[in-house]
């Protein structure tokens, strides 16, 4: 079950945050996303001295908290996608697939000439596409 997705810009400014459960406190999820940004920065700034790892877009599992797992994805423009999920047995390939679709939706939203880069994404179409992708992820990993 995905509880939250977030897009954070290259100056760590939030571009889009959406939570998908009513029960949990939205603020707590924002906080989790915020902490995960530190992990992303740490991974980016401390190169592990292994060439291919440095420039990979998919960052993988960032860190597990008490009942969430947080995955990260970094684009070429230093825009980060953060995914918070409560699933315990989610497969890596599923998450990569999810981020690929997410990236496609993000590129379409940014290509909008009325979108100001750096401001929040306000397109309703984008929000709808994201909820569809999230629902599809929930179905595929439950099976």
């Amino acid at each position: 079950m995905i509880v939250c997705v977030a897009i954070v810009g290259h100056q760590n400014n939030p571009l889009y945050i959406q939570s998908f459960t009513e029960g949990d406190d939205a603020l707590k999820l924002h906080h989790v996303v915020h902490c995960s940004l530190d992990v992303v920065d740490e991974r980016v700034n401390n190169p592990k001295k292994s060439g291919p790892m440095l420039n990979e877009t998919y960052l993988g599992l960032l860190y597990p908290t008490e009942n969430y797992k947080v995955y990260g994805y970094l684009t070429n423009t230093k825009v980060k996608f953060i995914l918070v999920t409560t699933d315990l047995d989610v497969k890596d390939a599923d998450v990569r697939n999810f981020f690929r679709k997410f990236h496609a939706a993000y590129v379409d939203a940014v290509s909008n000439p009325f979108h100001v880069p750096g401001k929040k994404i306000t397109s309703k179409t984008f929000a709808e596409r994201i909820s569809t992708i999230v629902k599809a992820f929930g179905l595929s990993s439950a099976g």
Partner: protein
Amino acid sequence: MIGVGKIKQYSNVLDKPLNKGKQEVSLSAFAFLFSELVQYNQTQVDNIAELERRLEDAGYAVGARVLELLCHRERGNRRETRLLGILSFVHSTVWKILFGKVADSLEKGTEHEDEYMISEKELLVNRFISIPKDMGTFNCGAFVAGIVRGVLDGSGFPAVVTAHFVPMEGQQRPRTTILIKFAEEVLRREARLGG
């Protein structure tokens, strides 16, 4: 120039193919649109420098979006952190997507460490444009310079990009050169990474 987000009638958004290239726009349509863009800006400004700046800003917006799009389309694309890497990315990939071919040449400037030049015999945007004498050194390639600046800025390489005419012997139309001058911090970072 780029045809992303063409929503066909797919029942499920997940069935929509992640678009590949090869979507072509007619040259005349683009030429008309570009000439209208230049004319519109011409009525809004008083001098040449302002006109160039406006064209460049328009190009900057395009460049930022082209970068996002290309990074998504190229599977397994690595983030470019080296100077030569990003330059060859602009020179081949970006040019191929925008103009259908790679740029004619990429050179390193001789006078300064931080200058690089991408040259083109005939820029696509300049093909149907002739500059009146009283405009002096104005070059509509400022639009392309803006695109390059947008791509470089988005990738983390701040630079000043300008377009110039370079007259060539034996050709009646001068060659167009895009001059890229990187900021200080880029050179320092490059020295740190490379050294």
